[in-house]
């Protein structure tokens, strides 16, 4: 170690004198005496983990992470790299936000509660639904929670949960796990040209269906056109219409409440977090009817003893720490700090900025697709739909080869099928998009 030596935990403040005084106060000669561990299970080995100085530890992590290649990511499919304004980092990193616990003592947590209340309000505005909780883990787990909600709130029993055949694996698999302890069964319904095959969906929906899940935009970046019909269909069949989206898309696309969505899930951290290897923020909003069945924490406005407005976690009887096995979810620790960041980022953009960002999401995807479509051997977009942020293109060469070539030249894209790649414009700068188009044309030449 090159900086000051460490003995013991660097964050335990005890001097030798203090430790001695404390031991005396508790009537022990050594700290070891305070441990009541039977010999049989005492650990007398070592972990073999070195102790390092702060500097060395930083150097270690830096050197490990430096092994990540520096690529321009055009990946998307649920995880975007929108630029997060610096003010979000600086404000969210204030230690009062970062180091506080869940607001079980609201009288000394008003600031965080108000920020979460504002986050909920943002989602209410975006979705048009009356209730938004103050976070699930991510889009996949929010979808899972939506399914168990559907089971609880549907007036008659039923088992079928319908999801699009294009549902990405992570969400599908997580959903399967969430419903594993229930009678629910996840079934696919077909898509057509990147969107819901409404005729096929209509065909399959019966009274045993408890929930229909659709996404807008879809995983392939297409904008769904028949949402209102799905809303009508689910209403008729008493199934929940669960819609997957995100705050940027919701700033421009049809408002979920207007198309009959009962629940909206998705990843809200598309605002607020940079790309973080999939770390997210589960958006969960629903109709007021489900108030007592919502999973996760809710912040409500109330009054304090002096009749001034004050915020508090409310309806906690839904939660595990009170209701135990009859809780609406097992969630405890959630993603509150990410929700704070998302609220900050949205506030930083303002409604004009959010709508602009969303409109650019359409324009840039379509512009890049048009540009690539001019190349020989390339069709972009592959679907005859309007697109948001991203699109699928077909290439003559094997998609894997194209993607590998692109990666060698500094760009990451998805391979979605043998000759299909998916390209996302969100987060990249105009210059990067230009460079990509240039590089792409060389690669497919």
């Amino acid at each position, binding site marked *: 170690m090159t900086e000051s030596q460490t003995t013991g935990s660097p964050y335990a403040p005890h001097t030798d004198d203090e430790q001695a005084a*404390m031991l005396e106060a508790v009537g022990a000669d050594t700290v070891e005496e305070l441990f009541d561990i039977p010999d049989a299970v005492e650990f007398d080995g070592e*972990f073999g983990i070195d102790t390092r100085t702060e500097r060395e530890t930083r150097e270690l992590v830096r050197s490990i992470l430096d092994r990540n290649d520096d690529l321009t990511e055009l990946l998307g499919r649920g995880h975007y790299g929108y630029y997060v304004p610096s003010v979000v980092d600086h404000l969210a990193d204030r230690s009062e936000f970062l180091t506080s616990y869940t607001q079980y003592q609201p009288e000394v947590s008003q600031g965080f509660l108000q920020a979460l209340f504002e986050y909920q309000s943002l989602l209410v505005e975006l979705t048009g639904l009356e*209730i938004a909780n103050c976070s699930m883990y991510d889009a996949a787990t929010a979808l899972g929670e939506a399914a168990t909600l559907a089971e609880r709130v549907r007036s008659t029993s039923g088992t079928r949960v319908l999801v699009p055949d294009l549902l990405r694996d992570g969400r599908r698999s997580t959903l399967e796990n969430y419903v594993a302890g229930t009678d629910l069964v996840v079934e696919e319904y077909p898509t057509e040209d990147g969107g819901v095959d409404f005729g096929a969906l209509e065909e399959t929906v019966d009274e045993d269906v408890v929930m229909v899940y659709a996404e807008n935009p879809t995983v392939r970046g297409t904008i769904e056109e028949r949402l209102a019909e799905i809303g009508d269909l689910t209403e008729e069949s008493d199934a929940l219409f669960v819609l997957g989206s995100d705050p940027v898309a919701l700033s*421009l696309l049809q408002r979920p409440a207007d198309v009959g969505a009962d629940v909206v899930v998705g990843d809200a951290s598309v605002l607020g977090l940079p790309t973080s290897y999939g770390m997210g923020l589960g958006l969960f909003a629903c109709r007021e009817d489900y108030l007592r069945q919502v999973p996760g924490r809710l912040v409500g406005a*109330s009054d304090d003893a002096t009749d001034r407005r004050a915020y508090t976690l409310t309806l906690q009887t839904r939660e595990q720490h009170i209701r135990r096995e009859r809780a609406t979810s097992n969630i405890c*620790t959630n993603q509150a700090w990410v929700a704070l960041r998302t609220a900050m980022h949205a506030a930083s953009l303002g409604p004009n900025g959010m709508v602009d960002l969303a409109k650019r999401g359409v324009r840039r995807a379509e512009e890049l697709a048009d540009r690539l479509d001019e190349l020989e051997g390339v069709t972009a977009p592959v679907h005859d739909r309007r697109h948001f942020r991203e699109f699928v293109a077909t290439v003559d060469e094997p998609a894997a080869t194209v993607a590998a070539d692109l990666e060698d030249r500094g760009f990451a894209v998805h391979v979605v099928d043998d000759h299909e790649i998916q390209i996302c414009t969100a987060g990249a700068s105009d210059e990067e998009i230009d460079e990509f188009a240039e590089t792409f044309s060389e690669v497919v030449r």
Partner: protein
Amino acid sequence: QYEPLLSEKDLTRVDVDDDSPLPDDLTRDSLELPELSEPELARHYTRLSQMIYGIDTGPYPLGSCTMKYNPKFTEDVAALPSAGVHPDRSEESVQGTLELLYRLQDYLGRIGGMDAVTLQPPAGAAGEFVGIRVATAYHEHNGEDHRDEVIIPESAHGTNFATAALGGYDVVSLPSDDEGRVDLEALEAALSEDTAALMLTNPNTLGLFERDITEIAEMVHDVGGLLYYDGANLNALLGRARPGDMGFDVMHYNVHKTFATPHGGGGPGAGPVGVAEKLEPFLPAPRVREAEGDADYELFDPEHTIGKVHGYQGNWLVLIKAFAYIARLGDEGLADASAKAVLNANYLASQIGYDVPYEPFHHEFVASAGDQDAADVAKRMLDYGVHPPTTKWPEIVPEALMTEPTEVESKDTLDRLAAAFDAVAEEDDETLEAAPERTTARRIDQTNAARDPQLSWHTLEDGE
């Protein structure tokens, strides 16, 4: 000083159809949100932050929550630009991320005495869920899908019950014995061929070590059940005992409790899960292992994986911080953290007047507020400038004050905490019920909040 809601500062309605690249029928009509400048936002959130008690503000002795200091440098490493990668990148291009995950899996395995670790669960409760799902998969794999009961001590965390229920199990509740530990006879009675698992934390929520843990493990294993370790109290044992050595088959780690990642006002956390070798094939997909080809590390799906419990790989940024904390402290620091945590709990208990009925406790103790209402005691402690303990739980102690100072508090701070306990102990009910008086908000009306929920500024506008 009241800080207005953002919506009270401004609300601007933007007509979405102006200059829209999409036809009207694919778009919403308008969006109404606050349009404020950066300086205004900076002041808003700075002001809000001033109305929050955090670990840098003072002691935070929330029992079972292990609110310890969050080393600042861990924020720096999580903020490295090289940490910002997309989850769908090729494995070859994120070798750094995979290496860090691999090393953290390895660290956690050693610390818990576990053979394999998954880092995917985004929180402790999600870790529990993985444990339960792994148990289910294991039993099903062995043709024992009749096992439909999970046994949980009455004093366990609420998440245990909720998780078992989410996993489709019936919960069998287990009473404590007179000394506050698992009642072996009751356990014997509860165990059967229907037992899928026993969920336990050790030390338990009273801070007591389950001395009969070896026998308990044998009993559970004898009926073919699995033993689950709730990692909430692991901070008591680092370097002194390992769940794996005690016979636990599966455990989760709470990184914000044991490894000092910040709690962020509720989250994000991370709930890695460690398992004994026999359960490894069932862990979530993918995991990281050393590779044999060009790359050093690769992802793989365990043979009988339960699949995923998160869309991607969990809370990556949190995992970086946990890794950095462990790498900083090492064997010596981790062991010392537990030593000081236990010393602090014992010292604090010795300095307060409230009765502590169960001992010998380790990193936390549960005092009884006696004739006082524990929740009121907590509110009143706020007036003394300190955060109160967890209250009214576990119920085995009347008017419980569940107190965990952690290793980061100094003797001076513990003395200040003890003084606050003792001051409140002398006060009458009227004073307690009127508390808190010196906080940003006074006692908040919870009944009204739940009866007439106001969950967004939209209803406030209508309602007020």
